[in-house]
């Protein structure tokens, strides 16, 4: 019975979803920390943002260990000491586009997205600004925002305060396509 139920919801759900769900074909999330002493940069290409054109909902889940650094030592410290990815492997965002967008019409739209950001296990309500471009059936998301580390309980030990910025710039660029299963 449970199986039938599951199948039913799945069939219904997928049928329901197919018409207006967009899923990332490619996505690049990067962050940048800049201080007088050093610049630290990490890039993650494993995430897949998802968007529903019906209600403008956007969600993205990131495997934090997927961030790659030019310096492997920094990558290890990032995972082990700051993001504690063994305990908290993922970060996520789930929000809603505030503006009404005509997804059938090509063009660049300036948008704001309000929702819940979850980093390092701490959830915060945020509003992000960026562009949502509709182009030949694809949707391109582009945003840049600042993350204040202390807001997410990410502690910086005194000895590295000169090396690590207290606010980190995060960029996301992703191309989404109509999701077919």
């Amino acid at each position, binding site marked *: *019975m449970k199986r039938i*139920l599951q199948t*039913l*919801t799945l069939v*219904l*759900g997928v049928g*329901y*979803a197919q018409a207006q*769900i967009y*899923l990332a074909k490619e996505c690049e999330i990067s962050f940048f920390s800049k201080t007088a002493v050093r610049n630290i940069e990490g890039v993650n290409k*494993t*995430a*897949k943002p*998802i*968007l*529903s054109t019906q209600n403008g*909902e*956007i*969600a*993205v*889940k990131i*495997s934090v*260990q*997927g961030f790659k650094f*030019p*310096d*492997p*030592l920094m990558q*290890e*410290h990032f*995972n*082990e*000491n700051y993001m*504690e*990815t*063994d*305990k908290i*492997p993922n970060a*996520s965002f*789930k929000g809603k586009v505030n503006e009404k967008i005509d997804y059938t019409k090509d063009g660049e739209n300036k948008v704001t997205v309000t929702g819940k950001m979850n980093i390092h296990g701490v959830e915060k309500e945020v509003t992000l600004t960026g562009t949502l471009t509709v182009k030949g059936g694809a949707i391109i998301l582009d945003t840049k925002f600042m993350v204040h580390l202390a807001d997410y309980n990410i502690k910086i*030990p005194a*000895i*590295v305060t000169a090396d690590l910025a207290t606010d980190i710039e995060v960029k996301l660029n992703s191309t989404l396509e109509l*999701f077919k*299963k």
Partner: protein
Amino acid sequence: MKKLFFLAFTSLATISFAQDDLLSMLDSVQKPTSNKVFATFKTTKVINAQSTETVKKNCLDFHIFHRFGNIGQESGGGFHSLYGWDNISDVRISFDYGLTDNMTVGFARSKQNELLDFTFKWRFLEQTTNESVPITLCLYENMAITPMTFTSLYAGTTENSDAFSDRLSYVNQLIIARKFSSRLSIELLPTYFHRNFVKGLTNPDNGATQDNDIFAIGFAARYKLTKRSAIIVDYFHEVSQYMTGNSQITYYDPIAVGWEVETGGHVFHLDLTNASGLNENNFLTGTTDTWKKGGFKLGFNISRLFVF
């Protein structure tokens, strides 16, 4: 009743799906990433034992190892050597380079037996966070050459021809490690050690002669105390008739305990060990000091990683 329940359940499921979040939909399309377990140990060596850590691709790990003299009076230490501070048991300097993230080649020089050794380490299996791979496996090989003088190499033997091959010894090791939690990592090191040349000494108590081949089993562990410091231990037991119950030369199992501190690019180890040698070729068959008689020494390992 059952039907009603079914109906209620179905409608509930539909409702919950209608407002269902995209995040759980993502879970069904985004494959759960199987992350590799990292930082099982902090450097390529635990104390005396090799760890499963390798040097990352294109990075150079420069390591300085130092062992002072025995601390206890009974074993040659005591006040007049400032508890071993004035003596040097062994010094080893090594350079290890990461060919890939899992393959390291190295070169080192040790004071004891003037050993020059070439090392190769290959981590061919990595533990994953989803437990599909529960352990990390690593192969460690070294070949050591001793350039010591003819007289000291053959001292006490009737040997009168110098063969280069007599100067070589090899360590073959399989390292099996598991990181049990973010704090605790443990590894086992089945080891096969081969020396091309031994002096052929005999154990007067059981008649066994010195072996060219020795099997040993090692054990090492690391327990993190804080984010940047840990307690480390390692231990080896050699399987050798000649080394067992030998009243002429008493052999002991090398044991080491240490404290590890990480400071960004450096990793420091402060150790206490009864082994005087710093690499397997020396300490497996050359540990003749015992903790009981104060035959342990202070030592340190410093690792500095250079990123290119």
